[in-house]
């Protein structure tokens, strides 16, 4: 009896062992190996992390070492050649370009403002939007809508969407939120359910449960973001010191991966718009 149990156990253990081995041995082998260092924007953290995870499948020996210290610090680091790629969530200044930095826009972050379906207001100016979020306009009737209080919904402190939204409108740390929700989906659901509410979400999650607001007469969509006419957007730049073709083959592999179908999928997965080539 005991022996039987023992043998069953042994077989079980062996199976486990084999299964363990199986995981390690499959790989899409590639001869590019080494490390690529990235430094820069905290807003790009989600994207860069998704990228470094995704790239492992194609280049198992290539490692992305990412730090998130802010756009300016990242660009400075790449200019002084202490890092391979500088992440920036804004366009480069002429001064930075003069230092030899190459502005490689890998993705675009677009933010849509949304409101409840019952709302008659369809268009806001940038200024009106800023005033709503700082609490200077509190009723839709001041914006040409019905007499209804505005319920200001936003994201929690630390959220990339909130950071971008406030930065693009120039109202950092002045917003007065009635609700701070910690997920894009939650914002969408609350706006869909609460009449008189306004919220902001990444462009990719827009659906027909809410009505998107035009900004200065421009409808938020992938197209208007790509052609630059929609204002609530910012580029995600992965700057290199000199052209990509002048970089090491590891760095080139990173950009190859981003431009491949898998890379473009990752960009869409984290809620970004792929730029026009």
């Amino acid at each position, binding site marked *: 009896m005991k022996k039987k149990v023992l043998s069953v156990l042994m077989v079980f253990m062996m199976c486990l062992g084999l299964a363990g081995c199986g995981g390690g041995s499959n790989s899409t082998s590639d001869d590019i190996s080494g490390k690529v260092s990235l430094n820069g924007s905290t807003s790009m953290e989600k994207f860069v992390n998704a990228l470094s995870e995704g790239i492992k499948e194609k280049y198992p020996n290539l490692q992305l070492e990412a730090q998130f210290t802010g756009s300016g610090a990242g660009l400075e680091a790449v200019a002084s050649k202490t890092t391979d790629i500088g992440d920036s969530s804004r366009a480069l200044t002429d001064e930075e370009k003069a230092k030899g930095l190459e502005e490689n826009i890998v993705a675009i972050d677009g933010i849509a403002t949304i409101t409840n379906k019952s709302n008659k207001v369809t268009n806001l100016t940038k200024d009106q939007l800023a005033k709503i979020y700082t609490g200077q306009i509190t009723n839709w009737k001041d914006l040409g809508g019905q007499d209804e209080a505005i*319920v200001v919904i936003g994201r929690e402190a630390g959220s990339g969407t909130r950071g971008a939204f406030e930065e693009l409108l120039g109202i950092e740390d002045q917003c007065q939120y009635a609700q701070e929700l910690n997920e894009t989906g939650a914002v969408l659901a609350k706006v869909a359910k609460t009449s008189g509410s306004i919220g902001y979400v990444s462009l990719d999650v827009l659906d027909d449960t809410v009505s998107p607001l035009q900004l200065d007469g421009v409808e938020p969509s992938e197209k208007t973001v790509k052609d630059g006419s929609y204002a609530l957007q910012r580029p995600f730049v992965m700057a290199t010191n000199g052209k990509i073709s002048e970089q090491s083959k590891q760095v080139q592999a990173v950009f190859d991966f981003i431009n491949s179908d898998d890379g473009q999928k990752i960009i869409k997965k984290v809620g970004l718009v792929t730029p026009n080539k």
Partner: protein
Amino acid sequence: MEKKLSIISHKKAKSLVEKTAAMIFRGCAIISVLAVVTITGYMIISGTPAIFKEGITGILFSTTWAPTAAHPQYGIAYVILTSIVGVFLAICIGVPIGLFTAINLAEIAPARLRKILKSAIELLAGIPSVVYGLLGILIVNPMMYKLELMIYHGSKTHQFTGGANLLSAIIVLAIMILPTLINISETALKAVPDDYRKSSLALGASKMQTIFKVVVPSAKSGIMSAIVLGVGRAIGEAMAILLVAGNAVSLPLPFNSVRFLTTAIVSEMGYASGTHRQVLFTIGLVLFIFIMVINLVLTYVLKRGDLDE
């Protein structure tokens, strides 16, 4: 497989089994102690750096929560106040309902009604907290929004929250702690010896008089522990109130959007970094101390109850 039944024949093996079993049990007992010690140690280690950095007044007594500002401020006074006020009011609503339900169950209800009530309460206890939150969004929040629109109609100063406010959170919390309150108070009421009731009734007291003058006072310590456990459950709840309370840091007034200690951690943990993250751990430490105090009160209440009897 035949085996001889004898006490002596496997003496050695048996004593080995006994010893191993004892060791396993002891090991299991140590795990929970170890867990408590580790958690306490970890909470203190990760919760204190921010206090040293920002100063205890900068965190506990300041009211401005702006963790990502250019000059970040980490005041959680409103958050602490919200947790205290919210839980206190939830208890004020929950305790009468829970206690009367328990009295009904233990003393008044006929067997069939009792059965239905019992299974309903058990079901209530088994519902995951996030479901309470969803129901809060679907039912409580819209009702509160209507109320808000009525009360603050035409108000220029009030910021409309769409119904996600302190009141909604209190209502959801009050319902969530009902099962705890009911089950423990019922057990306490049932533990009161039948002789007490019979003597009281024999002296001419009515049923209600017996319940309120004899049974409830004798079950006092049990009911107290029910309340303390209810407070513990309410103060530690995060998921449900995250969905209904609005989560803006502000003074806990009934129609303000508020943030509790638990939701302060949950809602910003995802993207927080640096000092901001450390302060979230400090909030965890504050919450931990709250729960510890509640537990100490509970043991004190229970001990005093034992002395009474």
